[in-house]
C-alpha cells in the first residue's frame, strides 16, 4: 500500500474557518481567507467580478497603463495664465474640482469660490450680478479634470489666474494647477472677501512673475525627485508638504535672486512661500495628474486614474473607461475637528487632491509622515499599517517613491478596480475638511475612504466588454 499521506495538499479556504483548522491539523496546509461578500454584497457585481479575475485582456492593459504611469517624469516648466495655457478653457469658463456638477447644485465653499473668481475677474461687482452670469450661462463651469487641471478643495480656477505648468519630460502630456494661497480666508475654501481678492491679485502680479522667471532660469524642475526626497523627510505630499515646500524653495531661491526683478518682489514671494507649508501641494497634485494621465485611456485597463470630489459627489475615472465618471455621494469626513467645530459643520469631501492617493502618495504613503498621523487621530504604527493595507488593491509598487518606515519598501500604486471590489479594501485618502458655509475655511482634517459604489459601477462597465 502506498503512503499517500506523505503527499501534501495546499488549500485556500473561503467560508467556515474550522475547515482550514482540520486541514492544518491533519497534515495539509490551508490559508483561511478573511472573506466577506464582495462589492458590499451585490451578487450581480460579485458575479461580474469573477468573470474579470486573472483576465489577460485586462491584465495586459494594466501592465501598459502602469508602466506609462511609472515612466512618466513630470517637470515643472513654468507659470502661465490659465485662459492662455489650459486647453479648451476659453475666457468665460471657471474650473472646479471633482466630477461634473451644475452651478446651482454646488456646495457652499465651491459657490463662494465661484463668486470670488467672478469678482476677481471683474465680470461682476457683486454676488447677485455674478449669479445672474451663471444663470444665463454667460459664465460656465467645468471640472478641472476635463482640462488637464487639478485644484485642491474648491479647485476654482478662472482665466486670469496664474497656473503652474507641468510637462512630461518626453513631451507627452501637460498638467496645470493653480497656486496655493495658504490657510485661513482663502478662495479654495469659498472665501471671497476683498482681502482674498487682494491676495489673488498680488499672486497674479507679483508671485507669478517671480516664480515664472525663476523657473524659466532653472530650465525646469524635476518634481518626482522632490517628492521622493520629501517622503524621506516626513511628507506624504498631500496633507503634509513642509519638506517638499522647502525643497522647492531651495531650488527656486538662487534663480529668483538672479531674475533681476525688484528685490522686494522677490523677498515677498520667498516670504509668502516660506509662510505656507502647503505651497507644494498644488505642484504635487499636478505631477500626480501628469503621471496618471500618462496611464489614462488604455483600452480595457481597470487602473484608476483619478479620484476627485466636488463637495456633493465623489467620482473616479478609470483608464479603460475613457472620460466616464463613476460617482456617488461624497462622504462627510468623521475626522479631527478644530476647537468649536464638529462634523455638523463640515461640507462633504471636497477637492481634486485625492489625485495624490491615486498616484500612490498621500494616504497611501502615510507611513512616511508620522508627524500628521496624530493630527488625523492615529499612531505611527497605524500609518504603517494603512500604507501596507493598500498593497493588495494596487497593480504594483512605484519604486520611485519609497518609505523608510516600510524598510524602504516602495509605495503601493495603481489602484485596480477589481481588487478594490474583491477585497472590500477601499482606498484611503488623507483629507482636509472644509466648513459647509462659504469662506469659513478649513475646520479639520481626517482620513476617509473612497466609496465602494464608484468602484462597483466601474467594474460593471469594464465587464460589459466580452471577456477574452
Amino acid at each position, binding site marked *: *500500500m*502506498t503512503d*499517500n*499521506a506523505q*503527499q501534501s*495538499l*495546499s*488549500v*485556500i*479556504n*473561503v*467560508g*467556515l474557518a474550522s*475547515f*482550514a483548522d*482540520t*486541514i492544518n491539523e*491533519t497534515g*495539509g496546509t*490551508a*490559508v483561511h*481567507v478573511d*472573506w*466577506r461578500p*464582495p462589492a458590499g454584497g451585490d*451578487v450581480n457585481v*460579485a*458575479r461580474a*467580478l*469573477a*468573470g474579470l*479575475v*486573472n*483576465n489577460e485582456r485586462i491584465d495586459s492593459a494594466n501592465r501598459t497603463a502602469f508602466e506609462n504611469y511609472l*515612466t512618466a*517624469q513630470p517637470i515643472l516648466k513654468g507659470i502661465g495664465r490659465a485662459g492662455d495655457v489650459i486647453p479648451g478653457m476659453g475666457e468665460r469658463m471657471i474650473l472646479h474640482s471633482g466630477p461634473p456638477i451644475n452651478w446651482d447644485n454646488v456646495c457652499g465653499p465651491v459657490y463662494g469660490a465661484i463668486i470670488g473668481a467672478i469678482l476677481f475677474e471683474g465680470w461682476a461687482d457683486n454676488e447677485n450680478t455674478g449669479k445672474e452670469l451663471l444663470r444665463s450661462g454667460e459664465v460656465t463651469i467645468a471640472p478641472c479634470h476635463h482640462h488637464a487641471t487639478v485644484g485642491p478643495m474648491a479647485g476654482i480656477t478662472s482665466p486670469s489666474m496664474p497656473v503652474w505648468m507641468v510637462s512630461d519630460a518626453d513631451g507627452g502630456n501637460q498638467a496645470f494647477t493653480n497656486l496655493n494661497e495658504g490657510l485661513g480666508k482663502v478662495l479654495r475654501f469659498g472665501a471671497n472677501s476683498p482681502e482674498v481678492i487682494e491676495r489673488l491679485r498680488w499672486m497674479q502680479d507679483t508671485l507669478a512673475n517671480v516664480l515664472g522667471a525663476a523657473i524659466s532660469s532653472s530650465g525646469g524642475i524635476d518634481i*518626482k*525627485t522632490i517628492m*521622493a*526626497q520629501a517622503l*524621506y523627510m516626513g511628507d506624504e505630499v498631500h496633507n503634509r508638504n513642509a519638506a517638499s515646500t522647502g525643497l522647492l524653495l531651495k531650488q527656486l531661491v538662487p534663480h529668483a535672486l538672479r531674475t533681476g526683478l525688484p528685490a522686494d518682489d522677490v523677498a515677498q514671494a520667498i516670504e509668502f512661500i516660506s509662510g505656507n507649508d502647503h505651497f507644494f501641494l498644488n505642484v504635487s497634485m499636478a505631477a500626480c495628474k501628469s503621471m496618471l494621465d500618462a496611464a489614462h485611456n488604455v483600452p480595457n485597463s481597470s487602473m484608476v486614474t483619478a479620484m476627485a470630489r466636488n463637495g456633493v459627489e465623489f467620482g473616479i475615472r478609470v483608464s479603460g473607461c475613457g472620460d466616464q465618471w463613476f460617482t456617488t455621494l461624497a462622504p462627510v469626513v468623521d475626522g479631527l475637528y478644530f476647537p468649536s467645530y464638529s462634523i455638523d459643520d463640515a461640507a462633504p469631501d471636497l477637492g481634486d487632491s485625492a489625485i495624490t492617493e491615486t498616484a500612490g502618495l498621500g494616504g497611501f504613503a502615510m507611513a512616511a509622515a508620522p508627524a500628521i498621523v496624530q493630527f488625523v487621530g492615529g499612531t505611527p*504604527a497605524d500609518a*504603517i*499599517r494603512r*500604507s*501596507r*493595507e493598500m*498593497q*493588495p488593491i494596487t497593480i504594483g509598487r512605484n*519604486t520611485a517613491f519609497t518609505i523608510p*518606515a*516600510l*524598510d*524602504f*519598501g*516602495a509605495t*503601493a500604486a495603481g489602484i485596480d478596480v477589481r*481588487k478594490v471590489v*474583491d*477585497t472590500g479594501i477601499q482606498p484611503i485618502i488623507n483629507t482636509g475638511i472644509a466648513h459647509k458655509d462659504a469662506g469659513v475655511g478649513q475646520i479639520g482634517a481626517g482620513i476617509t475612504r473612497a466609496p465602494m459604489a464608484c468602484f462597483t459601477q466601474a467594474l460593471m462597465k469594464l465587464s460589459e466588454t466580452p471577456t477574452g
Partner: protein
Amino acid sequence: MQTETKILPNVYRDSVSLMQISSKLCSLPGIIQASAIMATEANIDLLVEAGLIEITVPAQPNDLLITIQGDNSKSVEAALGEAEASIEGEKLTPASGEEDAFAPRNIEMALDELPDAQLVLISCPGDYAGAEAEKALRLGLDVMIFSDNVSIEDEVALKKLAADSDRLVMGPDCGTAIMNGIPLGFANVVSPGDIGIVAASGTGLQQVSCLVDSLGCGISQALGTGGRDLSAQVGGRSMIKGLNILANDETTAVIVLISKPPAQEVAENVLTVAAACGKPVVVNFLGAEPDVMRRENIYPAETLEHAAHLAVELSKGNKALLNDLSRYGLGEPEINELISPLSDSRKFVRGLYSGGTFSYEAMLLLEYEIGPVNSASPLSPEHKLKDIWSSTGNTVLDLGDDNFTRGRPHPMIDHRLRHDRILQEAEDPETAVILFDVVAGYGSHPDPAGEMAASISAAVNGSYNPIFVGFVCGTDADPQNRSDQERKLRDAGAVVVSNNAQAVRLTGDIIAKLGDGK
C-alpha cells in the same frame, strides 16, 4: 572578468541606503567591485576613476546607476538581480518589531501567501459561492464547493469552465472529500490505500471510505461531485472528470462510484467511461438494477456496504465476487428477546436519519423487505407524509433535508431537532423500532453518540419502549473515536451494528416478524 551596468531611470534613493546596497553587493560571491549610486556627474566621475565604467554611460542625474564587476557573467548577473531586488525593497514588510500581518481578504491574496495551492474550499453563502468558484477556476485552481443554494445553471457553467482548463469542480453541495489523505469538509480520518472513490453523495462517500478502512484497506482519493452532478442537465461532468483523475492516478487500483440513480443517458456515459478506464470499477447507483449496469470491468453493488466489500476484495486481487452479504450478527433468539417486551401496538419503524443517503438506502432496502415506507421525501410521491412533523406507519426521514433544516443547523452538528423527534416517536404507541445513524468525523458534532445516548435515555420510561437500532459511520482515528461512540450507544441500550445496510436489514427482519405475530 566581467563588468555590467544597469540604469534604473527616475529612481531615487538616498546615499545611505545606496551605500548599504553597494556593500551588500560587494560581499556576494564572485564580485570584485560593485556600486549603486545616483548618476550625478560627480558620482560618475568617481566610477570612471575607479575604472568601473566608461565616461559614456547614458545616465541622467535622476537615474540610479548600478555597476557590478565580477569573475564571470553568472555571478555578475546574480548580483544585478540582487541589486534590483534590494532597490525595489522586499514586500511592504512592517518595520522591525511590528507584527501585524494582514489576513488575506480574497483568493488572490491567499494565493500570494500559498503559491502552491491546489484547491479552493468554498463554504461561504451560496449566493456568492458560484462567483468565488469562478475566481478559483480562473486562477487555475481546483474547487470544492461545500455551499448549497447554487443554481444548476451556475453549476453547469462552472463545470464547463473547469473543463476548459482541465480543472475539477466538486459540488456544489459537496459535503466531503479526501484528497492526498487530507479530510475536507465533513470527512473521516481513514487509512491511505489504493481504493479511489467518486461520489455524488457525501454520506455515501463517508460510509464507503470508513468501511474500507475498517476492513483493513485504505483510500487513495475520495472525490465528491455534488448531488446534482449526474442529472441530465449537468451530465455527470464532475464524476467523469473524477473517474479520469483516478484512472490516471498511480496509487489508485480500484475505483468506486456512488450516486443515486443517474439520468439514463448520463449513467450510460459514465458507465462507458468507467468500463474503458483500465481499472476495476465498483458502481453503487443506489436502487439501480445491477444487470443494467453490468459491463466489462464494472462491478455493480447493491448497497454502500456491498460497494466497500467489493472494493476491498478487488484491492486484494479477488475477482471471484461475492454477492451482497449483509450479516448483522444477531440470531433469531436474540431478535425474539428484543421484541418480546414490545406492546402489541408497536409494529412500525421510524427512521430518523441525519445522513440523506442513509435515509434513501433505508427506504430502498425496507421497501424490498417490508413494503413502501412513508417519508417527507419518499421514493414515490404517493408515500409522502401529509404532515412531515407527524409519522404514520413505517416512516423514514432525512432530518438533514431542507424541509427540516430551514432556519436550523444541520442535525449532524446540532442534535436538538432529532432529540425532539425521538421523544415524539417513542411516545407514539405504534413505534416498534427507532432506526438512526451517527456520523462522526471532522465537521460533525464533537460527541454525536453522547447526544444520541442522552435522547435514548430520555425516551426510555417503563417497559413499553421501542427498540433503538443504529450504527456509527466513522473510524477510530476520527476525533470522536468510533469505538467510544458505539460504546456510548450500547450503554444507553441501543442495538449497534456495523453499518446502515445491517441496521436496516435487522430492522426489516424485526418489523416483518412483528407483522407475522410474535
